[in-house]
Every structure is written in C-alpha cells, then in structure tokens.
C-alpha cells in the first residue's frame, strides 16, 4: 500500500474528515462574527462568551427544566440571542458613531463579566453533557461518530442558508444596503435600527448554536469560548473581515489544515492558524476574500 509522507491513506482521509468537523465549528463562529462585523461594524469580542452561554444554556435547560438536546438546539440560541439584542439596544447602540475600538472594548469587557459569572457559579472544570446520538459508523478508514456527522451537516446547512439569505434574497439586500447608506434605506421606510438589532441577535444566535452543538462533544466550561475565540478571530482575519463566504470557506479550510498539522507535527497544531494569519496579512492584508475599503 502506498503511503503519503509516512501516513497511510486511511489515516489521512480520517484526519481530513476530522478537520472538516472542527472546521464546522470555526465556520459557524466566524460566520456570526463576519455577519456582525459586516453589517454593524462591531468587532464582537463577546462572541466566545456567547458560544459558551449557548452550551451552558443547553445544560441548564436539560438539568433545570428537563429539555432534551433537540429542544435546546432551538431554545438556547433564541434565549442567548435575546440577551444579545438587549445588549445591542442598551449598550452597543451608543457606540456606533465612535471608533471600532470602543465596541471592541465594550464587548471584551462583557465577555470577561459573563465568563466570571459562570465560573463563580459552576467552577472552571466544566459540566457533563451526554451525547444525544451515541454510536457511529465504521467508514473503513475511520470510525465516524454519528454525532460528529450530524455536526458537519448541521453546520453546512446553517452556513449556506445564512449566505443565501444575505447574498441572494431581498431581505439580505436591505441588510447590505443599510450598511452602506443607513439614511437612504431609512428614507425608503425600512426600520434600520430594528434590522440592526435583529442582525446582531442572529449573529449571537449563531454563536450560541455552535455552543449547543459543542456541548456533547467538548467540556461545557466557562472558558470554552475564550480558548476558541482567538482562533476564530484569526479565521475571520484570514478570510477577510465581513466577507460571509470568506468566513465559511476559511473556517472549513483552516479546520482541515489544523487537522493535518495534528498528524504531521502535533506540537504546532495550536499555532499553525496564526502562522497562516501572519502570512496572509503580509501578502493580502484585506484577507483572502476581503476587499480593501
């Protein structure tokens, strides 16, 4: 049997698939960030905390109210999105006229507060959440757990539905128009502030949805978001700030690259994305899919 760089092809296919699974989380998170940045011009550092809140939401729904995973998959993102919209209405809204940095500082501070609150209540080592889809399929080259397969499919559906709505529907065209000329769009009788609130809520909901999906696979812990968010920001920077398709494709692509690094040189797997980010910033500062403004 042939071997590629010392790795049997079965193992390689397995790792590619695993990379796609991890990429699914990156894609969903960076998509939310890209939507929020593209339409609100806010660098949402609370994103990681909102991802964590989505996972905790699922845990709380199960343990306090007995809502199973499938219910939480819908309810938890809605709850977290509502919290996000309250934040947008009461706090973020005041900063739109100011420099990006103010939004970044506010959302970063909020993230620290949320994390601190959850850590105080639940401790740092996390909580158990059982796998709703135990078992798996042997694909010949690897064992694919059913749950992971579900995550990839769910993420692909969500990502492309979002892309479709924003880039190919009338609603999406309003959204895009509102980011360019809010005053004009408002003059056509569209409630731009409400649209922005809903958009922020949607971006946050995406983060929370990723959080719910992560709950059975990873440990539900207060720091789960802050560990991931830095990587996701790197993904967004590589893809190009604000580019929807860029966020999706780079999310999956970097997941695969990271997965391969885990085979060839595992020690570097936590840094490879940042190395790529540095290279992309040097060669194409606006990101792979971004356009310089």
């Amino acid at each position, binding site marked *: 049997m042939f071997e590629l760089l010392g790795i049997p092809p*079965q*193992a390689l296919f397995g790792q590619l698939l695993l990379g796609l699974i991890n990429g699914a989380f990156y894609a969903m998170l960076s998509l939310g960030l890209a939507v929020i940045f593209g339409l609100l011009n806010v660098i949402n550092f609370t994103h990681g905390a909102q991802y964590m809140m989505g996972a905790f939401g699922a845990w709380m729904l199960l343990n306090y109210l007995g809502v199973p995973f499938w219910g939480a998959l819908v309810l938890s993102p809605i709850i977290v999105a509502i919290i996000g919209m309250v934040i947008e209405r009461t706090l973020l809204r005041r900063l739109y006229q100011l420099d990006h940095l103010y939004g970044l500082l506010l959302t970063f501070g909020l993230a620290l507060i949320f994390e601190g609150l959850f850590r105080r209540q639940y401790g*740092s*080592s996390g909580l158990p959440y059982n*796998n709703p889809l135990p078992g798996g399929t042997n694909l010949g080259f690897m064992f694919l757990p059913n749950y992971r397969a579900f995550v990839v499919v769910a993420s692909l559906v969500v990502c492309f539905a979002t892309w479709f709505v924003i880039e190919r529907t009338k609603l999406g065209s309003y959204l895009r128009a509102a980011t360019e000329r809010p005053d004009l769009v408002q003059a056509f009788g569209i409630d731009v502030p409400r649209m922005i609130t809903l958009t922020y809520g949607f971006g946050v909901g995406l983060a929370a949805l990723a959080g719910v999906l992560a709950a059975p696979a990873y*440990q539900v812990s207060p720091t789960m978001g802050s*560990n991931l968010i830095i990587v996701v920001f790197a993904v967004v920077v590589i893809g190009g700030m604000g580019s929807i398709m860029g966020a999706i494709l780079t999310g999956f692509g970097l997941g695969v690259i990271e997965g391969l690094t885990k085979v060839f040189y595992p020690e570097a797997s*936590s840094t490879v994305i940042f190395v790529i980010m540095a290279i992309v910033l040097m060669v194409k500062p606006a990101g792979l899919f971004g356009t310089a403004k």
Partner: protein
Amino acid sequence: MRLAAIFLAASSLVGIGVAQAADPVPVKIGVLNDQSGLYADLGGPGSVWAAKKAVEDFGAAAKGLKVEVLAADHQNKADVGTSIARQWYDVDGVDVIVDTPNSGIALAVSGVTKEKNKVFINSGAATSDLTGKACTPNTVHWTYDTWALANGTGKAIVKTGGDTWFFLTADYAFGHALERDTSKVVTDNGGKVLGSVKVPLNNADFSSFLLQAQSSKAKIVGLANAGGDTINSIKQASEYGIVDGGQKLAGLLIFLTDVHSLGLKTAQGLNLTAAWYWDQTDANRTFADAFAKANGGKRPTMVQAGVYSGVLHYLKAVEALKSAKDGAAVVAEMKKIPTDDPLFGKGEVRIDGRHIHPMYLYEVKKPSESKGPWDYYTLKATIPANEAFRPLSESDCPLVKKG
C-alpha cells in the same frame, strides 16, 4: 534638659526592644495557583481556604506566630508566576509559597525560592523533577508526583495485561515527565510503548489524536495530561468508540473535580492513583464537611488537602525555630521532625524534599453504586509509603549523597 531627652529616647528604644521580643513571629504564606483557568477547581480558591484552615487549626496565634495568608493567580503562565513570586519575596515579605499547580511554573518558582532562600511547599504540580534533578534545599513536594502516579496506575495496568501503550501527552514539563516516568514503569514491567503524540496544552478537540492512538493498536491509551485536557480526551474517547473497540484508557492523573465534571456515566471504571480521598476516614470527612460548607458544597481534592497538611507541617517547623526568615533552615527543620496530621497521617519529608506517605489506587464507581454527587471512588489498593515514591537509590537529586 538635653540629657533628659537623650535618656528618654534611649529608654523608649529599650522599650521597643522589649516589646519586639514579646511580639509574635510574623509569617506570610502566599498561595500561588491557577485561580481562574483549567486547574482552578482542583486548587484555586479551595487551596487558599485550606491554607487558612491549617493556620486556624494549628492555633498559630496562641503559639506565638502571626500568620497572614495571601493569594494570587498565575494564569498558567510561567512569567506571571515567577514575577508574582519575586514580588512576594522582595516587596511583600512572603516567607513561603504553597500549592502552585502547573509543573512548568512550579519548576520556575522553585528556582526563585532557592535564590531568595525562602520556602516552597508544592502540592498542585506533578513533575517528579521537583525532587529529582531540579531539587533544592528550599523546596518540599507534598502531595504526589509523576513517579508515584506512574508507579500506581501504570504498574497496576501492566500487571493486569495492559502491556502495550500509546500516550497522549500534554506538551509541557508535566506531560513530558509523566510520559517518561510511566514509560519506564511500563517497560520495567515487561510492557512496550508503541508511540506517543504531544498535544498542545488546553486543547479542546482530541479526535485527531485519539484516531492516532486507535490506529496504533495499543491496548492502553495513556493520558499523560490533566484537568480539562483529561476530561475532553475521556469524553471524546467514548464518542469515538475507543473503549468499545477493545482499547482501554489509563488516566494517569485524574482529580476528583475531573470525575465530577465528566459525570460517572462517562468516567465509571477508570483506575486512578491519588494521595487522598475525602470519603476515606472520619478525619477526612470532617475536613471535607468544613470545606464543603465554605466552598459551595464542593468536596476537596488531594491538592487542597495537601496544601492544608503542608502548611500545618511548615508552621510546626517555624514554631520550633521561632523564625521564618531562613528558608533553608525551615526546610531542614521540616525534614527533621516527622510529619503527622489528621489528613495524611504519619510520614516524613525526605532529604530530597519529597513528602513520603501512602498512595492509593481507586476505581471510579458506577452511577448505580454512587450515593450522590462527590461519592465517586472505591479503594482498590493501598500502596505503602515505602513503595509509593521514587526510592533515593534512583534519585538524581544532587542533595542525595550516593553511597
């Protein structure tokens, strides 16, 4: 008039001198650990509580010691940890640093402690190098170490047929030490190490590494990691059918809080080595009840119990010397007097700084066997004190004179 003033000044000086002699001996204890990250639950604020409790139980005030307990968060960063240690020793007058999980930081703090001639009583870190090649006359390693873990869990598993191993190793001082010590136990007992993969610290997704472990066909997948990393690897191993496929997981360092976080459904049946379990003796339970009352119902880990026991012994040594200033002298005194406390029983601090006491092999209960939260372990075997830790004959600590 001038004479009178001089006399007055002189007498007041004498007065100060007299008052000083009667003043209590000041002792400052600094608890340096992870207060907010992945090791915060196993040490963290609970260790601070344990240190304070030790001071209280010792009756420090009545014995002429004026003890103050400080705490700081090293955030699992060696530079943060060492700069706090320097600040404490140089500016704040701290005499002893305790706990300090994260082997990388522990080794760094041990170096600073020696340089400043203070005392370092480590409970949270695992690397056996603290009392091995990096040992110092100022460091005592209290609770456990990688040699003891390897010797406990590793030996037990090889003896029951788990003779081929693949390691998932946390890529820093601790993981490397644990892999090294366990590999030695495995090969010494006739087993074989088929491979290992070094995983960056604080990794969320282990599926790729688990797949590599799976394709190695090793009977045992050894987890040379800790805290959140162990939790995630066990959780995902069950998802990827590692255990169903006939391989077994060996968690080499598992804390009570990890089992709590995993839930018994996932953690059941795991074998683990620990220095202390809260539900083992009446004294332990009394301590655990007080701990739970002050810490929102949580039960203490072996690290927190070790902080308590270590501080208690330290205070005994300071009481005997009537001073905490000379760190090496205090540690020498700690080595001289035998250890004896309600939680770790009788033992000793060896010449290399290793606290010697029995270790225990536990099995995690099935959900049906557990009476409720925190009722997690069944005792399987006791490893007597003289077998639990690396014998001095194998030590590469420069303090140990080879005969």
